[in-house]
């Protein structure tokens, strides 16, 4: 076991490149440390990113926000992007949100990752880096299976970029009101030109975008009938499983319900100030 504390991104990437698969980046540690304790994860060496300068930056440029991989959930609660803020607020308790980072959230590739669902619904783009250089891809394409991503063994998540000019909303069904893994989670956004993106969690092997449903909405106003049809389509696109957190039938039904609810909210709410659409009594 070796514990490395690189002082720059380049140094971190060089370490990862030379140490290979079982060297693990650690920042927030909220997933990794649990994995080690439960014997799910074996680690030969840590590359500690918590003090690498430049990884936790938030950069606004035009209509985008670039979020450094080491930004915490607590930071993102305050950035005014509704779905992202709402998703971050539902992650763990304040302690976890102070620790857990964006890089960890997307790198974990949990199909139940609330923030990942919000991010794909915002059409986010992820930036990956290695000693070989950097590359970018839509975040939705980055997830390839439960816990699996397109990340190469020598790569790290460098940042995620989201648009700041989309209206967005988020809704989570969990088993309690805090520190809960989602049973079903959904987010949606609409661009100034009217393009709709939907993100769904816990209903597919990865955080999922119902492309056919989105296609049905393209170029059309969000009428009640069209929303209902798109919601039904979304329910037909997902592939939920039954496990101890929820049944497939319920999950599929909730995809329809939540998609409809979120799209209606997007349609009904003025462009500005969509900060709270969670259950009115929550």
């Amino acid at each position, binding site marked *: 076991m*070796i*514990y490395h504390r690189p002082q720059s991104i380049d140094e971190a990437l060089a370490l990862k490149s030379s140490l290979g698969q079982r060297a693990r980046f650690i920042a927030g540690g909220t997933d990794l440390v649990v994995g080690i304790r439960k014997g799910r994860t074996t680690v030969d060496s840590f590359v500690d990113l918590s003090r690498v300068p430049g990884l936790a930056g938030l950069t606004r440029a035009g209509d985008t926000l670039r979020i450094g991989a080491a930004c915490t959930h607590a930071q993102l609660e305050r950035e005014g992007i509704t779905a992202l803020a709402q998703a971050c607020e539902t992650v763990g308790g*304040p302690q976890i949100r102070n620790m857990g980072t964006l890089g960890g959230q997307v790198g974990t590739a949990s199909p139940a990752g609330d923030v990942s669902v919000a991010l794909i619904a915002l059409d986010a783009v992820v930036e990956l880096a290695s000693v070989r250089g950097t590359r970018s891809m839509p975040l939705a394409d980055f997830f390839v299976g439960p816990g699996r991503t397109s990340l190469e063994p020598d790569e790290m998540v460098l940042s995620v970029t989201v648009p700041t000019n989309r209206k967005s909303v988020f809704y989570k069904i969990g088993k309690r009101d*805090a520190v809960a893994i989602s049973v079903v989670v959904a987010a949606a956004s609409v661009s100034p030109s009217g393009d709709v993106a939907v993100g769904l969690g816990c209903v597919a092997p990865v955080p999922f975008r119902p492309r056919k449903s989105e296609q049905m909405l393209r170029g059309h106003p969000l009428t009640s009938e069209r929303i209902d049809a798109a919601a039904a389509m979304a329910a037909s696109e997902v592939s939920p499983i039954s496990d101890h957190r929820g049944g497939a039938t319920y999950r599929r039904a909730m995809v329809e319900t939540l998609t409809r609810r979120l799209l209606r909210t997007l349609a009904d709410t003025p462009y500005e100030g969509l900060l709270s659409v969670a259950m009115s009594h929550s």
Partner: protein
Amino acid sequence: MSESNALHPERVAMTLVLNGHSVSVEVDPRETLFDTLRERLRATGTKGACLGGECGSCTILLDGEPVTACLVMALQADGRAVDTVEGLAEGEQLSALQAAFVQAGAVQCGYCTPGLLVAATALLRKNPKPTEQDVRRGLAGNLCRCTGYGKIIEAVLNASQQGDAQGTQKSALRGKR
């Protein structure tokens, strides 16, 4: 790359500022801050009920921010300020929050109490006049199985109303045993 920054087992020296006092300790690079505090420094006021970040019993302040010590690797805290329940009272003087917990009956079994006190301390530092909902949101990461939370909320709100008022003296009870 600089191997000079690599730390090898089995023991690595590190320093933390624990409750305002600089402390040097040798740790295993594989251990968490939770174990360092409890096993090496014998600061057992910090409790652990799940060791998975789910219960908040091990809440401490790392550079002033509440985190769960069970998910922090010891070496991540090297050179940083760590505050635990043991640092809340000023000598024999309970903090306003501790005193409010005593007075409101917010303590039953007491196992969640250290983590709650630390989380609530951070909450009041950021937001000295919280609403009930602020308190609920601020303490949402701390489980309590005994109280139903009502008296905890009452205690935090009472403490906030006292502002910086001092807590009460620890009673003479302690000398008696």
